[in-house]
C-alpha cells in the first residue's frame, strides 16, 4: 500500500489483499485499502480500473477470489449482499437500478434493515414509514414524483430515487457508484450538500466519481485505483499533485 495512511483513525471498511479476476482480466488486484470512519472517502481511477468490481466484492454482489474484507472490525468477506446491507453498508449502482414497475413510494418501502417477523408482517404502508420515505424524497428533491412509476422517470430522476432508496435502509456506511453521472450540475451541488449533511450526522461515505470538482470539493480522503490496485491515497489536494495520479487518471 502506497502513500502513508492517516494515523490513528478508526477504519470503517478495510480490505486486505482483495483480489478478483475474470478469465484473463484481473479486475481487482491484491487491493489493500482502508476507508476512514465518519469521513467522506473518494475512490477514483480510470475506466476499468476495478472500482465497481471492488464495490461488488465488498458488498458481496460477487465473491472475491482472495483477500478479506472487514467492516468495523468484523470480517464480512464473501457475505451475501443482503447480509452486508443489513450490517449497515448501503450502495448504489453505476447504471442506476430502480424497481421499474413500482411507484416511487413503493421503491422506498423496500429497504430492510432488521428483518424480524414482527417488522416483516407489519403493514408496509404504515404512516410512519411513509413519512420517513417522504422525508428522503424531499431531501433528494423528487417528492413531487411520489406516485409516478419509477420506469417513467428520466435517468437523472432515477439516480436520485435510487439514492433515496439506499438512505431508507438507514445504513451507516454508504457506497455510491458515480452518483453524479448523468445528473445535472445544480443537482450535483444538491447531492454534494446532502452528502455533507449526512456525513455531519455521522454517516460514512465511499464515493466513486469521475467528476473531479465534486470529488475534490467533497472528499476528505481519496483513494486512487489503477489496474485494480490503489496507487495513491490521501487528501484531495495532495492527490491532485501526485504525478502517478496525473499520469494514470487526470491526463497531462
Amino acid at each position, binding site marked *: 500500500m502506497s502513500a502513508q495512511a492517516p494515523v490513528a483513525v478508526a477504519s470503517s471498511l478495510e480490505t486486505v489483499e482483495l483480489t478478483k479476476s475474470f478469465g484473463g482480466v484481473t479486475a481487482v488486484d491484491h487491493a489493500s485499502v482502508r476507508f476512514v470512519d465518519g469521513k467522506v472517502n473518494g475512490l477514483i481511477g480510470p475506466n*476499468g480500473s476495478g472500482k465497481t468490481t471492488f464495490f461488488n466484492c465488498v458488498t458481496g454482489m460477487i465473491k472475491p477470489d482472495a483477500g478479506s474484507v472487514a467492516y468495523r472490525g468484523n470480517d464480512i468477506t464473501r457475505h451475501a449482499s443482503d447480509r452486508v446491507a443489513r450490517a449497515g453498508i448501503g450502495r448504489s449502482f453505476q447504471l442506476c437500478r430502480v424497481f421499474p414497475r413500482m411507484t416511487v413510494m413503493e421503491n422506498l418501502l423496500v429497504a430492510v434493515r432488521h428483518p424480524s417477523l414482527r417488522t416483516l408482517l407489519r403493514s408496509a404502508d404504515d404512516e410512519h414509514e411513509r413519512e420517513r420515505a417522504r422525508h428522503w424524497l424531499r431531501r433528494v428533491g423528487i417528492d413531487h414524483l411520489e406516485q409516478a412509476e419509477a420506469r417513467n422517470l*428520466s435517468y437523472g430522476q432515477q*439516480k436520485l430515487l435510487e439514492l433515496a432508496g439506499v438512505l431508507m435502509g438507514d445504513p451507516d456506511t454508504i457506497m455510491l457508484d458515480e452518483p453524479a453521472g448523468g445528473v*445535472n*450540475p445544480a443537482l450535483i451541488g444538491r447531492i454534494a450538500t446532502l452528502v455533507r449533511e449526512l456525513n455531519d450526522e455521522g454517516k460514512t461515505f465511499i464515493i466513486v466519481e469521475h467528476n473531479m470538482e465534486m470529488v475534490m470539493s467533497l472528499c476528505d480522503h481519496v483513494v486512487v485505483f489503477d489496474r485494480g490496485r490503489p496507487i495513491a491515497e490521501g487528501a484531495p489536494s495532495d492527490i491532485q499533485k501526485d504525478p502517478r495520479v496525473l499520469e494514470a487518471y487526470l*491526463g497531462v
Partner: protein
Amino acid sequence: MASESKYLLELNDIEAGYGRAALVLRGLTVQVPPATVVCLVGPNGAGKSTVLKVASGMLAPRSGSIVVDGVDVTGTNSQHMLKHGLAHVLQGHSVFREMTVAENVLLGAFTIKDQKAIDERVAFVQNLFPIVGERWKQLAGLLSGGQQKQVEFARSLMVSPKVVLLDEPSMGLDPKTTAKVFEQVARMRDAGTAVLLVEQNARRALETADIGCVLDLGRVHISGPAPELLADPALGDLYLGGRPADSAHVGGSTAEPATKGR
C-alpha cells in the same frame, strides 16, 4: 431542394410526450447548421433525451416537423434514419451485452457494404479507444461502465453521417477519455457534421460547443453562442452548477422554474 436549406437538422416547434401522460416537449424548436455543435443543457427530466428521441424517430412527435438536410423525415421509423444520414448515440447503456466487442463495433457498420472501408474504420476506433482493441473478442456486457460507453461511441464512429445526436457521451468516462470524446466531437464538426449534443457536464460541453440551448419545461429557454452562456452568471448557477459558495443566495430563485410547472 436539399441544397438550399441552411440547416442539416431542424426540429420545428415539436410537441411530444409519452403515452397519455402530459406533454414533455411543448413547442420546441432547434436547428443545427452544418459543421456546428449545438449543445442542449437543462435539468434532469427537462426533456433533452426526448428531443433526441424525437429527432431520430424513436418517439413520434404529436405535432411539429423534423427535417434532415432538407428532407422532411417526420414520422420516419428510426431504423431508416441512418439512410437519411442521422445517427443517434443513446443515453445510458446501449451496447449489445451478449455480443462481443467486435460484433458490437461491426454492427455499427451494418449499413455499409464496402469491407475495406469497414476495416479502416475498425483500425481507427481501435487506436482511438485502446480498450476496444484489447477486448475485441470479449462480451461487451462484461466491460466496465465506462468501457461500455467507449464501445458505444466507437460503434457510432463506424459510419460518418451528416447529423450526429449524442446523449451524454461523457457520462461515466474518466477525465482522460472524456477529453478524447470531446476531441472527437470537435473533429466531427470540423468534418462538416452537424452535432446535437446533450450533456450534463455542461461547462465542459459548452467549451466545445458553438451554440448552447438551455432546455426547461420542454421549451428552449435560452439559447445563444456557447461562450456567452458560459459567461452568464445566473445561468451558470442555475444550470451549469455554481460553486457551492454561491449556493446560499441562489437557493430561493432556483426553486422558481419548478413552481412554474404547476
